[in-house]
């Protein structure tokens, strides 16, 4: 029996994150030379980005003119035959070692090929395809929250946020978000695709934008494909665990129902305020007429006294993003107060104060006083 081993491991980009890397098993998709055996193990746990082929007798015979390469097996047809991947090859009579210059990619399939001289031509004498499955790390599973948390969302909802318990830049791929409708049809194509993922500065919040072509009226994608969310239908947004072995376990999912699109600008005069008594630290509650953008709400307003003094305190956003409590650091004093809104405040559909997202081109925004006054007695 011919003896042939293929051993391979994958360096992880996560080494840079100083997490423990463990070896990945390979999935062998096809076996070109059925009689040859396989041996999967690490060359060195500290430098696992190495692939070794231990050669059978037949291949040892052609060691003078042997050529070895590893190529990507493209998932889709492409215009040119794959160029062999960059790497260093150390070849002895009995074995070939290959160290890719760049780590093999998770979820990709590769083909290792040994060429020998047959007559005057170099021909593939042995080849094997293998794929690198999903990521597997010794790690804590990150916690993640989805916002908005409201269960009824306008059909033209613009942004979803995934808030992680840790810096997930480079560890999470947008492909790991699934949006399915109540018919079980995958709708995650509704999310916009950028060259750059929209991470917060601390890498803990990822912004997902629904394709604006599918949100804005009169833009062709909207007319052809319809809005990404259809009023009356139910949807499930799921975040899959990019780093789980192969099952892509669901980290969290949120269900919601799409309701009619919200295309009105924000009008603070239409919101209500519930006011506590003086000399308490009870919250002032601001109740909106719609679901607000969770991330923008964090910094979008302040409360001042009639003398313009800013009240220190904390905010708590209610589940559903339709109201927010402001809890002062010190007890309220009797007097007149004003909630002053920042121009950046938006509802979940991107409508701003006095200015709907989906307005006529170059319409001047209507002037709305971005403040609400209230007394505390």
């Amino acid at each position, binding site marked *: 029996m011919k003896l042939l081993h293929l051993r391979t491991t994958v360096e992880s*980009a996560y080494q840079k994150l100083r997490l423990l890397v463990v070896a990945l098993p390979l999935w062998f998709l096809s076996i070109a030379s059925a009689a040859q055996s396989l041996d999967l193990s690490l060359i060195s746990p500290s430098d696992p980005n190495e692939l070794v082929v231990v050669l059978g007798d037949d291949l040892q015979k052609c060691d003078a003119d042997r050529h070895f390469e590893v190529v990507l097996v493209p998932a889709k047809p492409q215009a*040119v035959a794959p*160029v062999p991947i960059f790497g260093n090859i150390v070849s002895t009579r009995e074995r070939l070692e290959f160290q890719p*210059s760049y780590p093999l990619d998770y979820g990709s399939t*590769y083909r290792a090929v040994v060429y020998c001289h047959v007559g005057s031509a170099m021909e593939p004498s042995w080849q094997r395809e293998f794929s690198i499955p999903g990521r597997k790390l010794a790690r804590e599973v990150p916690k993640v929250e989805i916002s908005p948390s409201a269960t009824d969302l306008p059909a033209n909802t613009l942004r979803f946020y995934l808030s992680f318990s840790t810096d997930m830049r480079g560890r999470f791929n947008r492909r790991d978000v699934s949006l399915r409708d109540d018919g079980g049809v995958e709708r995650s194509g509704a999310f916009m695709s950028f060259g*750059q993922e929209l991470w917060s500065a601390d890498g803990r919040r990822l*912004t997902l934008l629904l394709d*604006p072509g599918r949100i804005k009226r009169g833009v062709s994608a909207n007319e052809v494909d319809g809005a990404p969310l259809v009023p009356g239908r139910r949807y499930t947004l799921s975040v899959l665990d990019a780093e789980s072995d192969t099952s892509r376990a669901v980290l969290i999912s949120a269900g919601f129902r799409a309701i009619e699109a919200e295309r009105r600008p924000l009008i603070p005069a239409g919101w209500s305020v519930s006011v506590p008594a003086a000399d308490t630290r009870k919250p002032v509650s601001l109740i909106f007429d719609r679901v607000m953008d969770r991330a923008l709400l964090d910094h979008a307003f302040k409360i001042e006294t009639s003398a313009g003094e800013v009240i220190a305190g904390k905010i708590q956003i209610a589940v559903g993003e339709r109201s927010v409590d402001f809890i002062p650091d010190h007890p309220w004093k009797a007097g007149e107060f004003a909630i002053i809104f920042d121009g950046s405040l938006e509802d979940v559909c991107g409508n701003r104060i006095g200015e709907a*997202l989906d307005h006529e081109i170059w319409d001047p925004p209507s002037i709305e006083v971005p403040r609400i006054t209230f007394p505390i007695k």
Partner: protein
Amino acid sequence: MRFTPKALLSLLLLVSPLLCASANAAGDSLRYAGALAFSPDGVLFVGDNVSGAIFSYPIGRGTAPTAASAPLEVDNIDVRIANALGVASNEVTINGMAVHPITQDVYLSVSRGYGDGSLPAIVRVAPSGQIFNVDLHGLSSSEYKIPDAPGDDMHFRDRSHDWPVPSAVKYDAKAQIPVRTLTIVDMKFHNGELYVSGISNEEFSSTLRRISYPFTGKASESKIRMYHIAHTRYETRAPVRAMTFATIDGVDTLIAAYTCSPLVLIPVSALKDGERVTGKTIGDMGNGQPISMFKVNVYGQESLFVTNMGHGPRYIPLAGFSKAVSYTPDNSPKGYPSDISPEYPIGPVGKAVMFVGASLHADALNDKFLVSLTRDAESGNLNLEALPVAPLPMKLDRIWSEFDFPGGGPTGN
């Protein structure tokens, strides 16, 4: 207490990040491979807008190609590079390009993957068209850390109400990109110094840095102001997009191209540390964003070749810069001139020349050819192609004219 060599090494490793210029283990430190430039001796400079640093790699002088090989032509260069990096073509972005001044190898800076998880790579394309990895780990690099690079928290203004397209959402996304992506925009090596255009973390952000090489950690930094004809105002924020050097009226001069699209002269001697320099606006190439600018010799006439994201490229004879008029608010067209205004383009800005497809990066290859990373107009393929400087930088395989018909050749009638 005795210091063992190992302990000393550890101490050095601890201290090294504190030094502005430090030798390091090359590829380990590079986080993003952006703008590229070569010194005449074959030192490759790589701009890294994520680290806010410039890395140098001594590639070496090498030898000039001997045989007159066929002009460089590599179709689907992005697919080939992606595959060689182990991924599919949509997983790579080519960020920059520079030609080795002696070997005529084309160096491309590449990102594999997107965002913070991406890997930087430098790829060499030989005159034969063969593609090689540049093993940065095997080269002794040095680093110049830009002391006043913008931080992660500075972002662009949301322009969603400046213009009807694209949708507000895309402007919103643009406004979430950190401005540090413009820390290093273009780099050129000139008379022993690396010149770097880009921005700093100040409101007067447009900055030209002069960095002597080998890196010592010191650099001269000037703030650049210029009169923008189309915007009818002096500008200090947006950086020089492309630059080169020439002697104009006996003065060693930096020629700067800006977005929408002033051409500005700055005497090199004015670029002193801490100075605020107002460049001389001598013209405007029309709207659009310059990408690459370098010198070519067109039938004996020294000219600039300037590519642009919004237009085809231009040949601009340098002779026209002599005694050129300086545009200021006093002698500029009133209002907001644009491509559709009769005044545009303005000044000695040469001519637009035929070019098939869109050049994403370009550089001089040799006396007769330039090289362009070109997005093909019909297929959308990304090709690396040598093109003749004269008579025109184009190919005939994608256009059909009278000349293509039997009997319709150049000598026919």
